[in-house]
Structure formats: C-alpha cells, structure tokens
C-alpha cells in the first residue's frame, strides 16, 4: 500500500517537474512561435542564482524568490538583442538560440568554473511505512501547481493577459487597436524566461548544479512543448501529464532507460497522429 502511494507521489513529482520546466518555453512558443533552445540555459542560470545567493547568505528560499527576476532580466536582454530580429523564422531561431545556449554554457564555465558547491535539499524527509519520502518533492509539486495557476490567472483575469491572448490570436488586429505587438512579445519572452529561472531555482537543491545542467532538460522540454502544441495550458499540461507520466511509470516498473525510450516513442506517436501537437486536435492555428 505504501509502495503504491510512494510511487504515485513519484509519478506526480515527475509530471510536476516536467510541467514547471516546460511552462516557460510553452509561453514563448505559444505566443511567438519561437523555439528557444537556450531555455535549458535559462533554467541553469536560475539554478546558479540559488547557488550564488545561498553562498552569500540569502539562503535557498531567498534564491528561489530572486531567480525569476534575475533570469527574466537576462531574457529581456536576449530578446532585444537577438530574438527580436528572427520572428517568423522558426528554424533560424532554433539555430540562433542553439548557438546562444553554447555561448552561455561556455561563459558560465569560464566565470564560475565547472564545479561549484551546491545546496543540499532542504525540508528533510518523512517516513511512509518502510519508505522515506523527501518532503522537498512535495514542495516541487506545489510550486508547479501554483505557477500554472498564477500564469493561468495572469492570462485570463488581467488586462495584460487579455492583450497577450489577443496578440496570440491576431497580432495585426491588436496593432490596429493601437497596441505595439513587439512590446507584448518582449514582455512574454521575459515572462517565459522568468518562469525558466524559477524552475531552475526550484530544481537546484535536487541535482548537481553544473554549467551543462540545461542540456539534461532541453531535449525533454523541447519535445513536451512540441507535443503539446500551441495551446499553453491544455497542450503543455496535457503533454506534461502524458509524457511525464509515461516516463516515470515505466521507470518505476522497469528501469530509467526504458522510461526515456517509452517517452520518446510516445512523443513520436502523438506527433504522427497530431502534427500540430495535442492542442492541434481542438485548435486551429492561423
């Protein structure tokens, strides 16, 4: 019985972390059709924010609060200098952001060195029968839920959200109504970067933080977002639940290797059936 409960928490954790990590890219892709392959590095920068802030006395939690602002600002700079020129050129943005990701990894390695002392996982563990569960995993699940709820509320209940959704559907109409779409793009890219920073910060106490951290996540996040399609919530949530669930369930049943293969195989299958991603099943993209 405990085994089942612990396994379910494990699956929920895997889904939650995948959704949290993918939320930023989902917004960027859903809004602007930009596939930002440097998203992994934005996640890594969020993790390093926590490392550096805890080394300077702000603690893990201070770092987690700080990270979205720091990485959001970095995202803003990236958008102004590079992404802004490449809207509409999907494959070109993929290539440019891939180059950016290489450059960021190298810059961090040169600045901070390849190994830095990390942060231990806070909150300890709780015993469930014979098994021990890290309490921080529950925090991650909560953080993912809160982030999704926050972004959903932002998009559906605020003026900014209304304008953003309008720009997603028809940028020309929004321009005709007197709002400058490039400003909206800038804001949403910054938002997507901030979310990536938050995800990285939350994940920092769980893994070894090294400059190549982003590379571990980018493939999964990229595939989740393309399988999810353009709809941010339905698509990404659906893809996160589906792919994250499959990968962790198979990992628990057999080994992590088959978990990864199963996830990738299912991604291929979904893409074959619905080339626009899951959200393409109920949405038309103009």
């Amino acid at each position, binding site marked *: 019985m405990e085994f089942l409960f612990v396994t379910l928490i494990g699956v929920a954790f895997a889904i939650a972390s995948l959704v949290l990590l993918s939320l930023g890219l989902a917004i960027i892709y859903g809004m602007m059709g930009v596939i930002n392959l440097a998203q992994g590095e934005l996640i890594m920068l969020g993790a390093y924010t926590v490392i550096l802030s805890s080394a300077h006395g702000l603690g893990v939690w201070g770092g987690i609060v700080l990270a979205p602002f720091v990485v959001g600002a970095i995202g803003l700079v990236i958008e102004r200098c590079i992404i802004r020129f490449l809207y509409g050129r999907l494959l070109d943005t993929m290539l440019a952001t891939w180059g950016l990701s290489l450059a960021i990894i190298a810059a961090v390695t040169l600045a901070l060195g*390849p190994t830095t002392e*990390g942060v231990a*996982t806070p909150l300890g563990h709780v015993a469930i029968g014979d098994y021990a569960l*890290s309490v921080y995993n529950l925090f991650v699940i909560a953080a993912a839920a809160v982030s999704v709820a926050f972004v959903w509320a932002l998009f559906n209940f605020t003026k900014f959200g209304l304008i953003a959704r309008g720009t997603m559907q028809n940028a020309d109409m929004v321009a005709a109504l007197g709002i400058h779409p490039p400003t909206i793009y800038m804001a949403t890219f910054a938002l997507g970067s901030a979310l990536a920073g938050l995800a990285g910060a939350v994940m920092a106490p*769980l893994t*070894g933080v090294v400059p190549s951290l982003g590379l571990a996540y980018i493939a999964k996040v990229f595939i989740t977002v393309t399988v999810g399609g353009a709809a941010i919530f339905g698509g990404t949530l659906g893809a996160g639940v589906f792919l994250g669930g499959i990968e962790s369930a198979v990992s628990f049943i057999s*080994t992590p*290797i088959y978990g990864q293969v199963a996830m990738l195989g299912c991604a291929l299958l979904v893409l074959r059936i619905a080339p626009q991603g899951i959200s393409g099943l109920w949405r038309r993209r103009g």
Partner: protein
Amino acid sequence: MKVYLKQTGGELVGEEFIPLDVVNFDSVIQRLQAAKPDVVMSLLVGGNHIAFYRQFAAAGLKDRMTIASATFGLGNEQVVLKPQEAEGIVVIYPYFQELDNSVNKDWVAAWRKRFGSSYTYITDSACTVWNGWHLWAMAVNKAQSLDRDKVIAALESGLTFESPEGSIRLDPKSHHVVHSVHLAKVNDKNGFSIMESFANVEPADTMKVCDLFANPNEHKQYTPKY
C-alpha cells in the same frame, strides 16, 4: 565487482544501468528502499548523476546504507555536494590531495603557486596524467631517442617513478602501472580522509592474461569472467 563479491561471500541484491542524462533518480531510490542493501556500489559519472547522491541523502538513506564508489570524486562531486550529503562515501584511488608524503607536499604547493591558492581540489586524474608524462620522459631519456619502438623498449625495461601518490612501477608485460592505492572516505571539508593505504598493488587479473612480450600487437580489452 561481481567476481570479488563472489569471492568474499557477498550477495548481489540489485543492479541498474542509468543513462547519462538522467537527473531524476526517484525510481532507483525507491527500488533501493525496497531491496534494503547494506552497501550501494556506485559507478555513476557525469554532472547529471550527482543528483543521485543529493536525492539519496534527501530521502534520508545515508543512515541506512553506505555508498562505496569507484568513480565518485573524479568530477569533484565532493565539492558540488554539501558535506552533510557526501560525508562518509567510501572511495579508493591511487592519489588524494591529502596524502602525507614529501613529494606530494611539494607538488601541491607548486600546483597552488601555478594555478592559484583557491584551486578547488586536485583529483586523481591530474596525478595520473603527471605520472604518464614523466614515465614517457624517463623512457625517452633512457632510450636517447623519440623513435616509437625504442621508447617502448625503454618503457618495458621496468621503470620506477616517485610520484605524488607514492612510488609507482611500470609492469613490463601488461603495460599497466603498479600503484600505491589508498582507501578513503569523504570528510566534511569537501575533501577526503584517508583510512588505509596499500602499497604496490599489482593489476593482478590483467597480468594473468596479458603478456605483451609474447604478443606485442595484441589489442584486446580484457574483462573478468564471472
């Protein structure tokens, strides 16, 4: 590993291979909790696998099981992990920065002077490279030539070198090095405390099967049978 386990009467309760880019070790940790081993032997490598040690400690398993590893430390994992997470992990290498001999003391001082006194930690890999180059240089000086065959002949004449790890010797037949090996565990200063030292450890199983005098062109990778 399986060979030695069998010889000493141990029992293998589980075995897992992890892809290099896995960061989520939940399923592995759960299986560990179910199997309840006394010792976990870790051969994990790479930046992503550091996550295992972190998640292992977070699940509170450090009190229940000891981790022994033949790969931990080569990537300065004990620097990335906080002391309370890594303390007590048992490793075994020919070289540790903490070794107490005069050659090592001079070497570490010279290293710090060249690369800065805040240099993180000198790993066994650094010493291995140092050994390799010096053995080659000794052979070239002995052969008085850079010609490949002459240098190999000089290398095969049984060279000894005072390395920072202790005295090492090149075994002529297997082309392997006879090391001084030290058993250590991670301490609370992002380094290691040495528990026991073994001098002149020969690569016994390779020496049994590999004779490069008799078969100089052999290039086969030997693995122990179990």
